[in-house]
């Protein structure tokens, strides 16, 4: 079982993701934007096994979250997966260069694919 931080500003989509991952035996902590996500990491340092993060979010976008995580010794090695509606290659490249572990485009999402992707990185 993994403890997963999910940063996603769509409550409906987050609900579906969380339910899928909880059904697969994981604990999911949901944050509605990037800054709230970073706050969750500070509240419980060293306890998260994976971060699933949308790119387009208010307050702090996914790229901002990734940069902050990589700049912190306590979080830089947590696997980070973009779960995003941004389907352009520039975003994929940018995420990879910043150190994202993987990338998942929402329009291709399926329950099985998501569970397998998480399993691959924990």
């Amino acid at each position, binding site marked *: 079982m993994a403890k997963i931080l999910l940063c996603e*500003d*769509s*409550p*409906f*989509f987050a*609900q*579906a*993701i969380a*339910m*899928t991952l909880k*059904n697969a035996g994981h604990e999911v902590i949901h944050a509605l934007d990037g800054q709230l996500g970073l706050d969750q990491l500070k509240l419980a340092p060293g306890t998260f096994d994976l971060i699933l993060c949308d790119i*387009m979010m208010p307050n702090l976008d996914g790229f901002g979250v990734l940069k902050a995580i990589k700049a912190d010794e306590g979080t830089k090695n947590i696997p980070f997966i973009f779960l995003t*509606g*941004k*389907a*352009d*290659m*520039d975003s994929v490249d940018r995420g990879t260069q910043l150190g994202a572990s993987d990338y998942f485009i*929402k*329009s291709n*999402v*399926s*329950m*099985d694919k998501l569970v397998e992707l998480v399993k691959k990185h924990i």
Partner: protein
Amino acid sequence: MASLYDLELQESNNLISALAAGGQPLSLKMMADMLSMPDMKTQLEDPTTEMGKSYARMKQLEKDMIQIMKEEGMTTELAKEAQLILTRNPASIADLADKEKDVIQKYWLTKKGLMLKLQNKGYTAQEIFA
């Protein structure tokens, strides 16, 4: 500098993906996938659970979206074409060929009408962009 794609996603998040999928919100696509699991199916089909309420709401949104897409002239093809153009990350409308400009402008105009009708039906932005 924000590209046209960034502007599209900032304004309406995943809506373009829903329109390109014929009106099915992304979250509904995910929820529908869960129906193959008996435990999840039970929750989704129970309107007294939070998940059940969301599922029912998203299914209604899909029905209304399909209807309003027809009324406003938003086709799946138009949304797909716009999505293809936008995911190339053009910096501005001026960077597009004339035919592509027409597609984007038609898509944006039609989308505005669609969003207004959905909001008039009582849907929130969070629901429309789910």
